């Protein structure tokens, strides 16, 4: 009896000692269970995290989906280095992925499709993308031109000879004016074209004066047709009217609130607030239209409270915010609350 006792005692003490050393296995709280809102209390929440797009597996349900997930279905399309995104209504999103190409992500039909794989113009190495009146405009850094596609991804036209646009990082539509703007970061210029591909005018040139650009990254258009351009290496946002005339600017370089370090994407919500995405702050800052800081969302994170090197931001009519979270290989979706 004593021997048994001493054996049990021995084992228990070993277990106790091991338990103290290894520590309790902490239960991994899944990121999805945490509802992130910004700002935090006691300020009223304005923006909430909604969901994430990873790729085809987002729609897997049922046995085949589970089996696919378990076997790590290699053929399922997954975002790798998502660059830009645009909304096309009816739950459709078109995404450019520098490695995966142009991808249709249809949340209504629950399908994900790679586009233009056998197209006449190579869509390899895409950058900016925009959608207007049934047409997709894709900036292709590979062939250095703009490809125009229909909704199924069939090439129907192009803008520019090969080599015309060495790095078309963003394309934005001014739909009421039947116009698109192409931002080229290598040429440091923004080009206004009609939706049919006729050249209208050029905005800016390389420099750091008013109305000039130093590696511009993205653009947005407000309801009046004013053009907002992220002038990344001048660390500012410049605003032009619909004729390309310089109006005003705001922003400066720094790592304090309200400043920029690597400003990338820009978007406007329905209240004409300006959202500027920063690839080194790892957040987007929201400014009112006068350029005053309202708040910011995000930090360096692999979780749903932030990003790693986000590139583009887009806001739809319902004030849903979409961010291409490049190094996390996903699209993050947020919602701006309505003011009451």
């Amino acid at each position: 009896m004593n021997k048994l006792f001493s054996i049990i005692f021995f084992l228990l003490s070993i277990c106790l000692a091991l338990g103290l050393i290894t520590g309790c296995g902490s239960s991994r709280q899944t990121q999805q269970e945490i509802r992130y809102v910004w700002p935090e209390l006691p300020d009223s929440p304005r923006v909430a995290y909604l969901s994430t797009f990873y790729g085809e597996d987002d729609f897997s349900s049922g046995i085949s989906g589970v089996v696919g997930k378990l076997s790590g279905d290699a053929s399922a399309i997954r975002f790798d280095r998502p660059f830009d995104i645009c909304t096309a209504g009816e739950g459709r999103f078109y995404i450019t992925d520098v490695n995966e190409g142009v991808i249709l992500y249809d949340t209504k039909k629950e399908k994900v499709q790679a586009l233009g794989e056998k197209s006449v113009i190579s869509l390899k190495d895409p950058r900016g993308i925009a959608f207007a009146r049934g047409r997709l405009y894709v900036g292709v850094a590979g062939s250095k031109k703009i490809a125009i596609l229909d909704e199924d991804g069939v090439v129907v036209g192009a803008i520019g000879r090969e080599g015309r646009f060495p790095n078309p990082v963003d394309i934005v539509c001014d739909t009421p004016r039947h116009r698109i703007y192409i931002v080229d970061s290598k040429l440091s210029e923004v080009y206004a074209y009609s939706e049919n591909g006729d050249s209208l005018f050029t905005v800016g040139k390389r420099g750091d004066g008013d109305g000039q650009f130093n590696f511009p990254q993205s653009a947005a258009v407000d309801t009046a047709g004013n053009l907002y351009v992220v002038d990344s290496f001048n660390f500012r946002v410049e605003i032009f009217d619909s004729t390309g005339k310089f109006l005003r600017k705001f922003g400066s370089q720094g790592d304090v609130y309200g400043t920029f370090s690597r400003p990338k994407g820009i978007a406007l919500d329905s209240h004409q607030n300006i959202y500027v995405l920063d690839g080194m702050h790892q957040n987007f800052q929201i400014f009112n239209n006068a350029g005053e800081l309202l708040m910011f969302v995000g930090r360096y994170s692999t979780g749903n409270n932030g990003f790693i090197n986000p590139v583009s931001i887009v806001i739809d009519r319902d004030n849903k915010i979409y961010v291409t979270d490049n190094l996390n290989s996903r699209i993050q979706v947020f919602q701006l609350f309505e003011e009451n």
Partner: protein
Amino acid sequence: MPRGNNLDSLMMRPINKSQEKQSMKHILFVLFALLTLSMMVLAQPGGKQPLPNFVGDDSTYANNKYGTGWPIGKFTGGVQGVRSAMLHGPHDFTPDSGKPFERDSIAPGVWDTVFSATGNKRLCSYCHAAHVPKTGVARPLWARKSVMGQTFGQYSNPTSLDATVYDPGAGQQDNYSSMCMSCHDGSIGIFADTKYESGGTAGDISHVPYIANMKNGEFDLAHVHPVNFDYNAVQALVPEELYPAVDPTSAVWKGYTGANGMFGSGSTYTTVRLFNGWMQCSSCHNPHMASGIGTVITSDYGRRCVACHKK
């Protein structure tokens, strides 16, 4: 003798002598076990010893035209030396590169090509933010009560011109490679198809089949090399494939004093630097050079690889 619940009275309880000996033995054994095991836990290395921070051939030096080693002070002419190395190179983003300008209100009549107190602050400022005075900090109008502080916490020393990014793994952000990727995601620079290990551990080496691939002096960025991971942790997983890192007191880094300097490329250079033991883009690439930034594409190619890889 007073009665009561004290130790004396307990000890005086009639116990079988042999039982007493047994229980004493048990107690001593447990205490001994706990003692040794807790010593193993508490006396872990890492805090006081130098981190193994370099991989490669002890007998070679980082030797280039700027001198042995590469902290910024070792550049001929210090900061101006860096400037002359970078000017007109791929990382010179000033729109009027090299043209002197008057140093505005801070030093009127003084002409400079490096620094401006206003504007975009010039050559270094695209990656190193100069400090911003308190008056430059915006208070978020929708987050007046919940948001404290002033900075996004990206720079290790936001109050100094010497502001550099945080050391990787030092806190919330690890940034050397993330900063490189902020341009080399295709938005500004050549797209670097890099396996950025955002988790930092690269523990799952099954998805690390990528190799850096430079052909005929041209970038072939279709292949990738993982960055932003704890080199020592990965090396421990595959010791037959990778050399272990050596500590910073080893002979090869005698001339090295800076904490965050970079290493120039030279034909004798076969040593790779880690950052707090982590591999980053800057382990092999030096952005402060006008040419040879690709480093691995020159005669270094092969030699740089075998600094870490055994085969």
